[in-house]
């Protein structure tokens, strides 16, 4: 009995060794097949791998940050050096701009009080309050076919999927994947990005779509609507995902009758970004105010 079992064990070991040799011989093809299956699954359901992706990024965020630190310093140094040479001209321009802004400030204050009194007369429900999370950009996708950036804020910082992300001058993208310590932002110029917008001036709703290039394209515009160069593009707030009125860019070119939009903020130039938190409901805000002040 014991002899049989020893023989069986030897046979099993031989079989295992043969299997290992076969796997070793065919592993490149097997691994290529596995990669193809993974790719197919990712093509069919792009969100399928969201969890493992963010878990990997969460685990490696400190390493990405550490490796990127010298390059961030280099970027800042280059920016400072180029800034120094332009500082005199910049100073003159800012002085002139400041003078103009003082005039605009007075006008804005007048309009604000007028607007408030009209709202009070009409009993308009107040707009929800906005709050922001400011965070650093720690990396990008590293591919010219995927326009995303990694930011150093996640669930721990109250970042949620779908929140709008602003650069220094306007919106640059939206949060698409959230980890504990980091999140991924889909930039507006990615071909998969589609944002409901309003064309100021024409007061026309449209969809702003990415092209994987610098200029974005306005689609779903009625054919009779004339959009002029220089028209400002802002978020429409349709669907409730983004707040209304976030500036995005302006129409700089009409290509074959299709308006092309240039973004106010360079999506790759931003070292820091602001995430627009989901607006708080006005009624909740009123209740909190009542509780904290103790008055009706």
């Amino acid at each position: 009995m014991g002899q049989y079992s020893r023989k069986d064990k030897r046979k099993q070991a031989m079989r295992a060794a043969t299997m290992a040799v076969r796997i070793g011989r065919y592993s490149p093809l097997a691994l290529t097949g596995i990669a193809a299956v993974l790719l197919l699954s990712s093509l069919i359901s792009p969100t399928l791998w969201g969890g493992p992706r963010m878990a990997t990024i969460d685990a490696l965020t400190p390493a990405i940050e550490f490796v990127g630190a010298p390059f961030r310093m280099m970027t800042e140094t280059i920016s400072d050096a180029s800034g120094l040479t332009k500082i005199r001209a910049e100073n003159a321009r800012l002085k002139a701009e400041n003078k103009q802004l003082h005039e605009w400030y007075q006008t804005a204050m007048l309009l604000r009080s007028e607007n408030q009194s009209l709202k009070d007369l009409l009993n308009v429900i107040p707009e929800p309050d906005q709050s922001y999370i400011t965070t650093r950009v720690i990396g990008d996708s590293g591919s010219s076919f995927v326009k995303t950036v990694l930011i150093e804020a996640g669930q721990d910082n109250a970042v949620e999927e779908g929140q709008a992300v602003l650069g220094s001058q306007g919106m640059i993208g939206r949060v698409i994947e959230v980890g504990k310590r980091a999140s991924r932002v889909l930039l507006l110029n990615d071909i998969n990005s589609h944002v409901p917008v309003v064309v100021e001036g024409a007061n026309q709703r449209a969809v702003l779509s990415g092209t994987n290039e610098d200029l974005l394209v306005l689609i779903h515009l009625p054919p009779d609507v004339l959009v002029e160069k220089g028209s400002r593009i802002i978020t429409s707030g349709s669907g409730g995902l983004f707040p209304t009125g976030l500036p995005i860019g302006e129409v700089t070119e009409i290509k074959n009758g299709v308006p092309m939009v240039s973004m106010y903020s360079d999506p790759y130039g931003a070292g820091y970004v602001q995430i627009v938190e989901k607006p708080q409901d006005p009624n909740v805000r009123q209740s909190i105010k009542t509780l904290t002040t103790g008055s009706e």
Partner: protein
Amino acid sequence: MSRHSFFGLHTLKLFGLYILLFLLILLNLVKFPLLGADGGKLSFLLIGIYFWTIYRPTLLPYPMVFASGLLLDLLSGGLVGLNALCFMIVAMIVRGQRRFLLGQSWSVVWAGFCVAVTLVMGIHYVVYSLSSLTILPPIPLGFNLIISYLLYPLILPPMILLNRVLSD
């Protein structure tokens, strides 16, 4: 030198190779001052895989190539499996041509890398065009390719150095 310390030193050298590969993966995600996002960064890891497949194939087995491609896929936010697939194809082709490439001059090996990176980026271009049902603009692809070709001689010195250390 004792047998034990010899193995310790060898393990340390191997560790150096894998750390270098990991660093190349992370460099792929780092924002560079002048390159922007289209700066041919995909080629960092590809240079490593191409070089070690030619000069140290036993240290870079296929499962390691697959794992590095998959890790890059997960980190880059692109289609999962695409880099793993491309790197496996490149590794298989390069291993098939290894004897030829080993006897060639540095410039021929560089030309071989240019073919490899063109193949990988070509696959990326086709797959991403299919996934978005659009013909993607080819200009960023061309820019990416040129940067990738030029990056090879810049990334090569640390790898040649490590290869020499491994030979000692």
